């Protein structure tokens, strides 16, 4: 976190959501607490079925929590219907009204709020400009492309100026190029409107590039909340480390502790420093993680680990080396390619692996 104190826009407190009953009971959310700050681009990240969409629907008001409460700007909205909360949603399939024009879609929320005709017209005009759709104001929503529909859905949800905008995997239906453009567009819109965005995605790259903070979810729980850098560099649990980016997991033994760091002994017998996650219980056996780009190849006999190169994969920007460790297991390195460089190593060659200082993170579980 950046340390500045902001007001909380949305707060979930000990929220559980159970669907069905008896043996069919599904616990979609399990005692989730999270505070989303004002003017924040907040992402709920996790695989399908992790509960991220359920949490979004509770904030929108389409479902209500089984236990716990949801607050919007301090007010308990747990059981308010959707039309009585200042929250709007961009749906995964956009859910544009097919019997209305682009402009009518954008004006719908304002009209329902009972705004004057002049105000609706003016705001719709501003929104059309904001998403650069002025030329298509009178088109039917079936007559515009997927990317344009996406922008209309955004404008429609932003037009009533909600306190919070919810986005349910809005980019998943777009092709790669368009998705990249929309990621930038969304950041711009969030910046220009100053509205809190709560963004749901299963795409870790999308989450890392767009978010101010990310909550990683799995099996109805929030595992870790933090900035993209926090989440990537300091994953606190195996699931988080595994779900986001590529990771090397190493089993190790704790040799000593000092504040937030520990001396750990790897299987090779080498002792190194590693960062401890907050609230870590005392344990002798731990798992440490290191990202593939935070280590380098060294001559055999040097570095923290020893092994033999199993294969080399060229990726353009970088090259991946898969090394079979002498102590068992495999280690992946990702090394940036210099222009005009050539392979310095061959498959089957014995090598050492040298860690960057501070590259190791101990996992909580």
């Amino acid at each position, binding site marked *: 976190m950046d340390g500045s104190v902001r007001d909380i826009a949305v707060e979930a407190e000990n929220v559980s959501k159970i669907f069905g009953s008896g043996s069919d009971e599904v616990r979609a959310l399990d005692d989730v607490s999270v505070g989303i700050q004002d003017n924040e681009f907040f992402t709920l990240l996790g695989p399908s079925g992790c509960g991220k969409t359920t949490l979004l629907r509770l904030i929108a008001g389409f479902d209500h929590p089984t236990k716990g409460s949801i607050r919007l700007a301090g007010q308990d909205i747990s059981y308010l219907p*959707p039309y009585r909360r200042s929250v709007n*949603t961009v749906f995964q399939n956009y859910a544009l009204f097919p*019997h209305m024009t682009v402009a009518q879609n954008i004006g719908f929320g304002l009209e329902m709020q009972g705004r004057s005709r002049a105000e609706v017209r003016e705001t719709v005009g501003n929104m059309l400009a904001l998403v650069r759709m002025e030329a298509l104001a009178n088109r039917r929503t079936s007559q515009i492309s997927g990317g344009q529909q996406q922008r209309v859905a955004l404008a429609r*949800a932003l037009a009533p100026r909600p306190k919070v905008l919810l986005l349910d995997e809005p980019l998943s239906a777009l092709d790669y190029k368009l998705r990249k453009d929309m990621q930038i567009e969304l950041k711009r819109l969030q910046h220009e409107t100053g509205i809190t965005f709560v963004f749901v995605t299963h795409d870790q790259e999308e989450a890392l590039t767009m978010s101010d903070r990310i909550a990683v979810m799995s099996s109805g729980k929030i595992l870790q909340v933090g900035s993209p850098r926090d989440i990537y560099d300091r994953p606190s649990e195996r699931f988080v480390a595994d779900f986001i980016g590529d990771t090397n997991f190493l089993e190790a033994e704790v040799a000593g502790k000092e504040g937030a760091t520990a001396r750990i002994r790897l299987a090779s017998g080498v002792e190194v420093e590693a960062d401890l996650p907050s609230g870590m219980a005392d344990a002798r056996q731990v798992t440490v993680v290191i990202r593939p780009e935070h280590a380098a190849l060294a001559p055999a006999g040097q570095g923290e680990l020893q092994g033999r190169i199993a294969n080399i994969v060229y990726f353009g920007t970088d090259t991946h080396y898969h090394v079979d460790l002498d102590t068992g297991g495999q280690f992946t390195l990702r090394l940036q390619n210099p222009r005009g460089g050539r392979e310095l190593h061959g498959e089957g060659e014995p090598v050492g692996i040298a860690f960057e200082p501070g590259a190791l993170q101990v996992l909580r579980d």
Partner: protein
Amino acid sequence: MAEPGEASALEEAEARAVRTRWALLVPAMLVLTIGAAGPLLVMLVYSFLEAGDYGGVEWVFSTDGWVQVFYAYDIFDEEWVAADAHLSIFWRSVKLSVVTTLLALFFGFPTAYFIATRSEKSRNAWLFLITIPFWTNLLIRTFAMMEVIRNEGVVNSVLIGIGLIDEPIQILYTDTAIALGMVYVYLPLMVLPIYASMEKFDFRLVEAAYDLYATRLRVLWRVILPLVKPGIVAGSILVFIPSLGAYVTPRVLGGGKNMMLGNLIELQFGQGRNWPLGAALSITLLVLVMVALLFYVRAAQRGSSGHG
């Protein structure tokens, strides 16, 4: 040399495909010609002939049939006066058909909505239930209805039994009974087309509208109704047309005195022995339906200007 040959072979194949396509229509065209167009033509011709003394027609040109649709000959004053009886039957038919259509819509729309929002599996079961009335003959069902609403019937017995009323309410042989009977008979014809529209309706739009501050009523009015309108239009047409020409229901539940157009027409071919008048009334009914449809479809299109 091969090219012209190929072209003609292609043309031949296409021509054959077109012929086959038209051939598929032949059986239906045959049935329609014999069953609909033929009788209609006969009716049109008969309406301009003279009535035979014992039914049938005399092959003499006459407009009496058409005049009698609107005027009756007063044998005492020896002059033509407006046929009030016919006009009141016309009026009652239109009124009862409109009421039946509205009631069917009132009961049918929520039913269709209910079925469309069930799980895919149970939907078929519900639709199956809707078709149950079709298993039994219309006449039998109408007589059963009579048992329910007559003075000593189930409804009155229960109402008297629980002390809500002292005297039985006269329902049977009233316009209410006719409307009730027709709603019962034609309700499935309203439910099924609305369901068909509703099944294609994307219910996520309802959530989107709620999300944009629309209350329940406004969601219904602004999002659901406009999008299932084709089903409502089709259902209303399917109920209104047979209601206007209904024969069995008004005959059984309306008794002798509350006639509708269908009964009036039947009367001319039976006891009335005035086939030209019966034919003219039939054509009038047809025109009435066409005019009503024209207005209705126009109105429906205007309501959704630029739709689609």
